[in-house]
């Protein structure tokens, strides 16, 4: 057991050290919240202003408050998926051949990689929370710690997703293109930057938005993940909170299980 933990720690620390040496990744971690919250959020806020008769429905938040949890999720998704690129690197340059020839248990190596990527992603997500005073979201310690749970689950889920993609990819370029192709549609179809009116039925929502859009948003598991974080951070959820936690927990468990299967298979 001690050896298992030693291997896990070694792989986890290696992931962290390697990422921390790359200043480019850190630039993204800071530039994303600055761009999305300061420019996108503030720029679009006047069009979302919820005064009287200015919107078709009323919601208890401003636009920048609405997208704030989604920006935290975006800052988790990118590093989480990118962390898995090291799997291709390790496979190409022989690190895995060496480690798998050693008595190191595969589950320990897998968990080390998973937790390494998730830790980095969680830390980058936490950076966004620093902007809470700017967007006027009160963030007492109780709310801060509660936010970390859905953020951790999202970090684990997307690191696992990255590992699944990396397990099936042969080149770095292919990984980058595929990851972006996956991340951006998932993100934009997660009610991250526009709300579905929670007081409306699905039929009524389909009169405001095209039915295909409502359908895609509703079947996207990330919708429920962002919604759960929105619930704990700004106190507003569009969907049933139980469904949010259920989708988030089950989705994470499923992706981690699938990632372990792929990791073990190669």
């Amino acid at each position: 057991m001690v050896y298992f933990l030693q291997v896990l720690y070694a792989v986890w620390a290696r992931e962290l050290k390697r990422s921390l040496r790359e200043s480019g990744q850190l630039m993204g971690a800071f530039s994303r919240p600055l761009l999305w919250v300061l420019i996108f959020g503030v720029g679009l806020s006047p069009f979302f202003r919820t005064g009287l008769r200015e919107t078709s429905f009323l919601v208890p938040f401003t636009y920048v408050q609405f997208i704030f949890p989604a920006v935290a999720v975006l800052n988790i998704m990118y590093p989480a998926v990118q962390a898995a690129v090291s799997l291709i690197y390790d496979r190409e340059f022989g690190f895995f051949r060496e480690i798998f020839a050693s008595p190191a248990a595969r589950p320990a190596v897998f968990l080390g990689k998973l937790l390494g990527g998730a830790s980095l992603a969680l830390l980058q997500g936490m950076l966004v929370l620093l902007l809470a005073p700017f967007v006027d979201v009160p963030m007492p310690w109780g709310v801060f710690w509660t936010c970390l749970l859905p953020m951790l689950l999202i970090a684990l889920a997307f690191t696992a997703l990255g590992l699944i993609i990396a397990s099936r990819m042969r080149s770095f370029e292919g990984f980058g293109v595929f990851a972006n192709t996956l991340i951006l549609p998932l993100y934009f179809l997660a009610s991250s930057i526009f709300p579905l009116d929670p007081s409306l039925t699905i039929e009524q929502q389909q009169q405001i938005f095209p039915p295909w859009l409502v359908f895609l948003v509703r079947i996207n598991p990330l919708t429920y993940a962002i919604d759960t974080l929105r619930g704990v951070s700004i106190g507003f959820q569009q969907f049933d909170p139980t469904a949010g936690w259920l989708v988030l927990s089950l989705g994470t468990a499923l992706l981690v299980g699938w990632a372990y299967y792929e990791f073990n298979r190669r």
Partner: protein
Amino acid sequence: MKPHKNPYRASLWTFLIGLALLLLARQLPPDLSLALVQQAGALRVCHPPSLPPLVESGGEGLEVELARQIAEALGVEAQLNLQVGWGQGQDPVDWGLRPESCDLLVGGILAGPETRALLTPLPYRRSHWGLWGQGPKVGLLAPFWGADRLALVEWLEARGYEIVYLESPAEAQGALRRGDITGLLSLDALKPVLPALPWQPVAELGEAQLSVGVWKGRTTLKRAVADALRQSARMPTPAAPAKAKEPAPGR
């Protein structure tokens, strides 16, 4: 021999610069709402025609006075803007209030889900629901924006009282004097203008938070008004005996 280069140096610099930028961004004003009020030199205060003792005709009342204190704290004049449609009908959307004509709203606003849909209510005083007199004919006086009238009616019905709906303290006084009602359910904030009958709080209905309102999204103005309320709470006046507590968005 080449000197050893710290592999984390570039990342450390990136981290420090990024962190400084984030902390700097926190200090930026997210909107111009306060600047516009200061530029105009006036805080436009929208209020209903009358809700004594909070708002009285002729630009008086506890909340109007509080609005003046807020304006003074912002370094501008309070410009009262009477809203004749305020309270005319159940849906506030029909009252004719316009964001462009009001910076601050006062006049019996209670913090709650209904008011938070449109405003950022900034509570300045706690008030309790209570019963003057007793049944069987009880007047319901709840001319407050954000009051949960359904809960009040359910409470009265559960006790088998006959409900008489009242719109103003003056109407309540008249009804009590004539014997049209034997009791009255309202907030204790209206005590100064209601007859001196025995009063008992209704714990089941909880407390309400009387608030002033700022349109949602006007963050810099909201912060300045909240600061002014905190200052006001430090110097107790009839209008500001309780500490102002800032609500979380949507919470």
